[in-house]
């Protein structure tokens, strides 16, 4: 069902115009998450939804060219690595797990500022991981579990 491109000009045009704005809004939600409602998870879901919109309007083959399976898996593990890496870095620097104040030893910006930066880094990681997880869940559900090769479907 998703393999072919939609022939609906209205939906395709609106998606083409709106996807960049949705992604900018998602980045705003991620970057502004520790001052206002939002955060890594919510921003990641919005980012993933923008890619899902691309899949729905332009078909799987065209969208996979921008966001293939390999890239999705890579970004998924990168996000988890950033999140866990910052947590373990705090542990290595002598604090508790995810205790960002100990990041001050390598950042040298004061405890409060390094807490803020640590939360921002974790949220970026969570955002990337959630976006990639959203896309791979969507692909799994929409193809019934087995993704056909692009050459012979």
């Amino acid at each position: 069902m998703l393999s072919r491109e939609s022939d609906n000009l209205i939906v395709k045009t609106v998606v083409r115009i709106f996807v960049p704005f949705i992604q900018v809004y998602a980045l705003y939600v991620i970057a502004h998450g520790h001052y206002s409602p939002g955060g890594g998870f919510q921003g990641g879901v919005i980012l993933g939804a923008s890619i899902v919109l691309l899949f729905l309007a332009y078909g799987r083959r065209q969208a996979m060219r921008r966001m293939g399976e390999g890239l999705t898996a890579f970004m998924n593990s990168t996000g988890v690595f950033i999140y866990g890496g910052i947590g373990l870095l705090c542990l290595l620097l002598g604090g508790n797990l995810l205790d960002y104040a100990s990041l001050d030893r390598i950042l040298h910006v004061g405890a409060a500022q390094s807490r803020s930066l640590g939360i921002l880094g974790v949220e970026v990681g969570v955002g990337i991981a959630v976006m990639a997880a959203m896309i791979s869940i969507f692909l799994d559900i929409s193809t019934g579990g087995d993704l056909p090769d692009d050459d012979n479907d």
Partner: protein
Amino acid sequence: MTIANVLTVALLVIGCFFFLTGTIGLVRFPDFYARMHATGKSDTLAVFCCLLALAIHHGLALDSFKLLLIAVFVYVANPTGTHAICRAAFRAGVKPWTRKTNK
């Protein structure tokens, strides 16, 4: 009672009126297409009126600008969604209601 207050109340009343008519249409109309017709149009205008009223009430600030951005987004996205759903229903073979088919 300033002009801004009068405008806010008037726009909110207009918005609520269109929400009400759209909902009545959703409940009362006979088939899928008529229901989409009722909600798709009136809800778009109602959301626009309500958000404009809130922006006027808040005055000239960043939050008003964000509200107007939401209004623009809904103004484009809501008719597109209605169009896509109606087209999918037509492709799936949903028959429009007529007096003949119902008798």
